């Protein structure tokens, strides 16, 4: 995804999603922009970060020179542990996921459909794919939140009628943050909940690939800091 996109930057998209996290939630952050949610200051809300490799309660990235080389998050970054952390093995870690114990999973995506389907594991024409833990998380977390650019590099919508790429799970996405704003799949289309500063409603309409519902009073995206 390009760093020159309009509207929200990567950290701001992550910030906006992080503001949704409630005190005590168990949160799984996917590789890439979702990881940035853990940088967001959301006050004294106590968030428990889980990663697929069995770490429950990881904290910030380890300072250079102080890394524990046997401690990584799902993206392979050397992280730290918060007080109260625990480590389990992979089958138990996905037991936590499949068992419905994850309050929210935040992932990147190529496309999200108005039905809540989304695609993020295989690109067009590829023989292989990269599923990782995404299908387990998508099918089983209590909520799936997506962070992605509003359009592809060539300008095609990522908020679409139907996914063209192979889906990761069906009907699961609850919330999407893009550089253009905050969107909810509603079945028959997307509802825009908040619009990014500097983005016009015309620009949003032009970049959503299906019906768009706009509330009478459309707030601007809440930002932190």
């Amino acid at each position, binding site marked *: 995804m390009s760093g020159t996109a309009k509207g929200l930057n990567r950290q701001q998209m992550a910030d906006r999603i992080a503001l949704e996290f409630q005190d005590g939630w168990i949160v799984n952050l996917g*590789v890439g922009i979702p990881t940035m949610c853990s940088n967001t200051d959301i006050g004294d809300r106590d968030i428990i970060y889980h990663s697929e490799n069995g770490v429950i309660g990881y904290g910030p990235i380890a300072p250079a020179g102080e890394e524990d*080389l*046997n401690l990584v998050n799902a993206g392979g970054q050397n992280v730290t542990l918060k007080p109260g952390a625990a480590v389990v*093995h992979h089958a138990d870690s996905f037991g936590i996921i499949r068992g419905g114990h994850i309050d929210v999973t935040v992932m990147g995506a190529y496309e999200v459909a108005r039905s809540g389907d989304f695609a993020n594991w295989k690109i067009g024409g590829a*023989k292989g794919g990269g599923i990782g833990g995404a*299908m387990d998380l998508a099918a*089983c977390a209590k909520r799936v939140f997506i962070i992605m650019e509003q359009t592809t590099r060539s300008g095609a919508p990522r908020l679409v009628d139907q996914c063209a790429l192979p889906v990761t799970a069906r009907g699961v996405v609850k919330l999407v943050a893009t550089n253009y704003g905050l969107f909810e799949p509603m079945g028959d289309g997307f509802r825009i909940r908040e619009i990014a500063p500097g983005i016009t409603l015309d620009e949003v309409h032009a970049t959503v690939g299906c019906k768009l519902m706009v509330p009478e009073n459309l707030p601007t995206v809440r930002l932190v800091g």
Partner: protein
Amino acid sequence: MGQSSKAFPSFHAAVQDIPDGATIGFGGFAMPGVPFNLIKALYEHGARQLILVANTTGGAQQPRMPDIGMLVENGQVKKVICAFTAATRPTDVIPFTKYYESGEVDAELVPQGTLAERMRAAGAGIPAFYTPTAVGTELAAGRETRVINGREYLLEYALPLDYAFIRATRADTFGNLQFHRSQRNFCPVMATAARITIAEVDEDIVPAGAIDPDQVHTAGIFVHRLVKVPPAPDGLWPTRRQERRR
């Protein structure tokens, strides 16, 4: 128990009986838990037509350490069973892709939790189970599903291993293991699924009884061979990850 130690004198000695066609699981998630030294020994050993089970095919991280992609490049592999058969980022290229797209090597793509659970099932005598993961996706096409309490689930089968290669921090002579932090990942699960589990171990092997029975992560009954990892450069150890340039 553990009067006769399971310690082997070398990585070479620990892998020398691996036959062509074996199914081998490799612990590890990013750097932690990857049995670098056993992979290197298997590369040198040369067994072929192998079926390899691991989270990824490797090759995406720098500096590159021994990974199953190297065994692929060495012509030793018939098939991989992984949660990633392409790079995590679509813009990256991993060595495996060339061999897969040419048809030289086969691959089975399995969601990570299903992969772990299939090996857990093999170790725990569960021949098959149902999971919500991958329902409605390309991976479920043509496969058996079942509606239970109104929700659709996919039938998945146990995945037994001939060998598991894992890495641990501490071992006693009986084979009881402890892992440090996220070194644990797939390692204990693969150990239960394998007929023969071989562990490379960071610390000197301690006498049976030196590890608190309450604090054993993998019980010695699941572990058959131990090799102490020598200090670098003779032994291979996890390194700091280098951030890719963007």
